[in-house]
């Protein structure tokens, strides 16, 4: 503990900008030296994709080499550069602090995105993992609105996602792709990427309308009973799609154009975080918490509880629909089996692991479960023993998840960190 605290105090004066710069250096090192020199001399077959976990689990003899690689490429440069550049990053952060918050946030995000883009660009598999993780972040935040902020136990999220995925896919396929099901493209394919946001939003709106089937029963019941109703909704959507041969039935639907490259997904994710954050910190969004904690008291305090519940479900479902649409256009193939109980387990694991009632928690949950899931892939079946075990441990020590009931404070996060004078 003592060491950890010392470590923390050494790096306490590094602003976010410094960390991004550190990661940037690491990515540059990996990009230019990773394959030709570092992995070559360490005897690794290629650049380790996800910090070498895959290689380590496949061949334990490689463990020292992988650890060496991670130290040389990631750990040492990140911490060293972050610490050494404080003389430069702190004043820059201080200048940015004086600009409006949104400008400073956008500058940080652009910088962060370029680093992420370079890191992901080294390998196709890595890029796919990053894309799916970003989509998972949207999903987790959206279910957190219903299960965390609103406090219902809704199991219908894969259903909402499926509605969004299918509606947006149908729209893009119908308008911009010549295929067997929908015939020739109606509009020139060049318009496709510009039209894509509308297709996504249409999918989201369809999902929001579908969510009314769960929201209206929630006026009269909650807890276990609503969980059963929402589970039923998920299966209804799945069976409905399976039996609709027009859209491929159980065989699924493929051939979606690849309209969802990394930057588009990143923008949607940030938009989702921004809008949900605005909502849950406003009084309108706090009403969700009030209804969750005491419905009768909320009514007496002029809160429209029915409207609030409907808002929570429709808003959550809308973002689930957006996530579904992005998902469909990343994989360019969907089938009803993807939106079933397995997906539900994954989404619930992410939200309860990360933390209820918190956007930061959702991000942490989505990233850790996704990366863990990919990293432990070589273990195959054992993966599904290790991840649930971790979940159980989290539930024992932190019943509301890792980071719960905490909101992002962008101003605090992005401030410069000059060393504070400490009294003796």
């Amino acid at each position, binding site marked *: 503990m003592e060491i950890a605290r010392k470590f923390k105090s050494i790096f306490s004066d590094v602003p976010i900008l410094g960390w991004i710069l550190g990661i940037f250096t690491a990515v540059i090192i990996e990009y230019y030296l990773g394959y030709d020199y570092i992995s070559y001399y360490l005897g690794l077959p290629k650049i380790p994709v996800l910090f070498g976990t895959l290689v380590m689990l496949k061949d334990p003899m490689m463990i020292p080499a992988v650890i060496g690689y991670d130290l040389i490429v990631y750990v040492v440069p990140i911490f060293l550069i972050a610490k050494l550049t404080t003389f430069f990053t702190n004043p820059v952060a201080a200048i940015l602090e004086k600009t409006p918050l949104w400008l400073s946030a956008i500058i940080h995000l652009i910088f962060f995105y370029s680093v992420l883009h370079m890191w992901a660009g080294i390998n196709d598999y890595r890029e796919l993992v990053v894309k799916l993780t970003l989509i998972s972040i949207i999903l987790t935040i959206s279910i957190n609105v219903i299960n965390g902020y609103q406090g219902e136990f809704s199991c219908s999220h894969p259903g909402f996602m499926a509605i969004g995925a299918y509606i947006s896919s149908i729209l893009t396929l119908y308008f911009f792709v010549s295929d067997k099901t929908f015939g020739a493209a109606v509009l020139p394919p060049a318009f496709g990427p510009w039209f894509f946001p509308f297709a996504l939003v249409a999918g989201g709106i369809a999902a929001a309308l579908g969510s009314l089937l769960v929201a209206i029963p929630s006026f009269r019941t909650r807890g276990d009973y609503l969980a059963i109703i929402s589970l039923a909704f998920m299966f209804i959507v799945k069976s409905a799609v399976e039996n609709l041969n027009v859209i491929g039935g159980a065989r699924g639907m493929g051939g979606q154009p690849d309209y969802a490259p990394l930057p588009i997904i990143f923008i949607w994710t940030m938009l989702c975080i921004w*809008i949900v954050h*605005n909502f849950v910190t406003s*009084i*309108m969004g706090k009403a969700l918490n009030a209804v969750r904690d*005491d419905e009768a008291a909320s*009514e007496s*305090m*002029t*809160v429209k509880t029915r409207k609030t519940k409907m808002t929570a479900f429709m808003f959550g479902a809308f973002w689930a629909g957006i996530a579904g649409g992005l998902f469909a256009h990343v994989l360019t193939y969907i089938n009803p089996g993807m939106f079933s109980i397995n997906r539900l387990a994954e989404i619930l694991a992410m939200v309860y692991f990360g933390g209820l009632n918190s956007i930061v928690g959702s991000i942490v949950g989505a990233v850790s479960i996704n990366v863990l899931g990919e990293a432990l892939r070589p273990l195959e079946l054992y993966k599904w023993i290790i991840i649930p075990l971790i979940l159980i441990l989290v539930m024992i020590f932190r019943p509301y998840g890792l980071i719960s*009931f905490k909101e992002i404070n962008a101003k605090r996060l992005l401030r410069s960190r000059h060393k504070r004078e400490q009294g003796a």
Partner: protein
Amino acid sequence: MSALLNVNKMTHYFGGLRAVHNYNLNIEPLQITGLIGPNGAGKTTIFNLITGVYTPTHGSITLENENIKGLETNEIAAMGLGRTFQNIALWRHMNVLDHIRMAHYSQLSYGLIGSFFNTPKCRQQETKVKENSYRLLELFDIKQHADQIVTNLPYGAQRRVEMARAMATNPKILFLDEPTAGMTSDELVQMIKIIRKVHEDFKVAIFLIEHRMKFVMELCQHIQTLVFGELIAEGPPEDIQNNPQVIEAYLGKEDLT
């Protein structure tokens, strides 16, 4: 009729059980009215009927000559009936400041879209609400607890939060359901002061349920006594204190033989 709140011949059945029978009430502006009665007399039911939690089977309820019977609780609350609860009903994961902010819900007009995109209108209204909330916190002497989660506060402070929250809805009449339940006599004296202060500062009428005679006699200008859902006596405190029927209901019949 110039009464602020008028309840006329209100009767309510729970299934076959007659909980309230022919209940009448007139509250004038600025009046403090007390409702007393033994346990199970139906006092809280009357509160719930007027505030819209239940809809009465018969009778009429008007607030400033407008019918409020059959409206939803939140609509009635927004029209000017603030209330507190017998068992403190605070939102357990929320901090004190958010409680007060939340109670301004009906006074906001920026709508959902405004809250999604944090529009200037939304920011402006939220700032105003925040200022007003701090003012209320100060008035009820809970400003030092603003960032704390309510469940960590001492009992007396929780009661004050509940009251501040009710005042944030901008009520014309404040309904207090046993405001001194579980309080020590010191806290009781403090509560009397707070209620007096609210009464004077906000110019509201107050309607309260209470068991402690001392409290009721000291505060109220008008007292009603309820037994088994029916009013048995009504009038100024001195009359009630000496009314044989009230004494009988509370202490039992004097055996003279």
